[in-house]
């Protein structure tokens, strides 16, 4: 195991205060709106940090904002000047993630950094420290353990805090950045004793055999009726993509007045009818069942296959580290028509073709 410390639960507010004093921006899940479900926002002392309920939307905006200005320009007669300095990001602590969220950020990073590296995501990640908490409870939509993660998984976290009893966290220092954070909070962290190494973790059963999903998908592609049946209720509302920690489709849009403007990168989704619509009116994915199929294939077939190609033979066939899903269950929780993903992946794993 990595280097560890012990932290008292009651020290968390002091830790956050110290970090703020150090100029860190803190983003944490706090209740929002009339329903009070937690939402990742800038820390507001009036509110409490909610580590109990899963946020409706993932913390991916911490690295991949809903809207990002990728270019600014000024027009002067016929002249155009592209302006702006290096990407400016404030040192940030993403606080209160779940292990699946942190793992999701890792995958998001690899999507944006492989091939042409994306400077915005890179700079943001470089300035961000991810503090995740192991899960002590899971709900029936969680399936991290079916896709290679787990309630105490450290991947993608800089620090992982796990409850060991009612009053203490075991702090795993996963990266040097995590170590720096511990140093900023000096005085609050104590050495972890031998007896303080056992994390209290939620039991998350494996819900379906992922290997079967991976092997069956390519041949299932052509079975139109299967996808139509799976997605009969799907509204194409894109909620599943927008709440997902890994979905990274985007749109580029210009906004400008006569003199200056900017080019913006905005979240988008392959579930939208307009996503693939050609100017000619032709649409390669013209009905929702094709778009649902794309969602599943992209996460569980195309991404793993591309990942294998990009990294040579390193991760073996069937490896879960290249999936486009960490099993957070958000899409299932938020889908207005209950297109439960576990259920659909199970049907895929069990299909006989």
């Amino acid at each position, binding site marked *: 195991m990595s280097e560890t410390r012990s932290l008292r639960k009651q020290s968390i507010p002091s830790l956050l205060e110290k970090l703020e004093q150090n100029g860190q921006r803190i983003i944490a899940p706090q209740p*929002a*709106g*009339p*329903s009070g*479900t937690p*939402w990742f926002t800038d820390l507001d002392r009036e509110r409490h940090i909610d580590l*109990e*309920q*899963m946020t*409706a*939307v993932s913390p991916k905006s911490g690295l991949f904002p*809903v*809207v990002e200005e990728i270019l600014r320009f000024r027009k002067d007669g016929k002249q155009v000047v592209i302006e702006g300095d290096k990407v400016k990001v404030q040192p940030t602590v993403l606080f209160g993630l779940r292990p699946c969220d942190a793992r999701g950020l890792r995958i998001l990073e690899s999507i944006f950094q492989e091939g042409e590296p994306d400077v915005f995501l890179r700079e943001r990640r470089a300035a961000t420290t991810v503090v995740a908490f192991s*899960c*002590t*409870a*899971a*709900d*029936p*939509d969680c399936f991290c353990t079916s896709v290679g993660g787990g309630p105490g998984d450290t991947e993608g976290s800089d620090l992982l805090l796990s409850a060991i009893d009612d009053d203490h966290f075991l702090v795993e220092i996963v990266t040097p950045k995590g170590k720096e954070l511990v140093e900023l909070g000096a005085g609050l962290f104590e050495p972890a004793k031998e007896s303080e190494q056992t994390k209290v973790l*939620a039991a998350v059963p494996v819900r379906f055999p992922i290997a079967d999903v991976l092997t069956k998908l390519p041949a299932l592609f052509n079975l139109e009726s299967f996808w*139509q049946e799976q*997605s*009969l*209720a799907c*509204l*194409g*509302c*894109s*909620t599943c*993509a*927008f*709440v997902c920690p890994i979905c990274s489709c985007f*749109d580029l*849009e210009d*906004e400008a007045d006569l003199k200056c403007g900017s080019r*913006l990168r*905005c*979240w988008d*989704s392959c579930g*939208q009818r*307009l996503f693939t619509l050609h100017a000619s009116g032709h649409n390669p994915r013209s*009905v*929702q*069942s094709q778009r649902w199929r794309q969602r599943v294939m992209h996460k569980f077939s195309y991404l793993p296959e591309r990942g294998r190609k990009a990294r040579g033979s390193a991760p073996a066939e069937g490896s879960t580290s290249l999936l486009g899903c960490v099993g957070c269950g958000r899409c*299932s*929780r*938020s889908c*207005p*028509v*209950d*297109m*439960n993903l*576990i*259920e659909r992946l199970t049907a895929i794993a069990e299909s006989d073709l």
Partner: protein
Amino acid sequence: MAETVRRTSGQTVVNDMEALRQRARELLDAGTVQVIIGYANGSNRRVRPFFARRPEDLERLILDDRCVLNLAVYLRKPEVKALGKAAVIATPPLLRSILQLAAENHYQESEAVFLALDSAGNVLELSSAEQIAGVLGSLPGSTGQDACVPSADRMPALSAGSTDRQARFAFWKQEFERCIRCYACRAACPMCYCEQCLVDSNQPQWIPVAAHSIGNLEWHISRAMHLAGRCVNCGACSEACPAGIPLNLVNQFLADRIQQEFGQKAGTSAKLDYALSVFSGSDRETFIK
């Protein structure tokens, strides 16, 4: 972590499911319809739309106060249309949307059959807008606030008659901040049937696509204006919104204004001129004359 349950309770509001199932079975057997669109129990205490095509599927049909998603949206979905003629298990909000769709020429006479229960527990089989209009007022649950839709009383700043504009604006500004522009509200709305939504047309780009404060405000104001006098307050938009924004309240606010000003209420008649595009000599505004 507490089990995440949607904003609804799952209380049974319909005890006469058997009667509904029986009529649905008759319709399937007779070949009058090929699919019954209703609700079934879904995963983890949620409900889901359900498409029953065989008599044995009918056992799964349920109806309770979690059934907010407006099934009328499926009448325009190609894959569902391909199943054949449909009978829809109807709630008052759904019937209101059918009436409003008919008023806008988007529901054709006998395009589908609607099965509803009257207060005596009898099954009503409705297929024309006229029939719907005739019984709608007497159906249980058709008046007052529909059970699980966010209601204004929970939000003091918005409570009926509140004239505190500043408080209202502050509230909505904060709510719209969370909008991520997924357009689930639009996808779930029976009245958002436009082939090309205003927000998707870019010549010119009327509404910013980006989910920043101004873009979100413009999107929601435009949507509200486009639904003014058309929204039937089914609550499907609020139910679908992943950010939990109580959108139907905006639309309801406008609906109330339209009723005050023009004496019209969407979803009450299939013969309703659109209040905001009809001019009459008796209008109070002087600019028309």
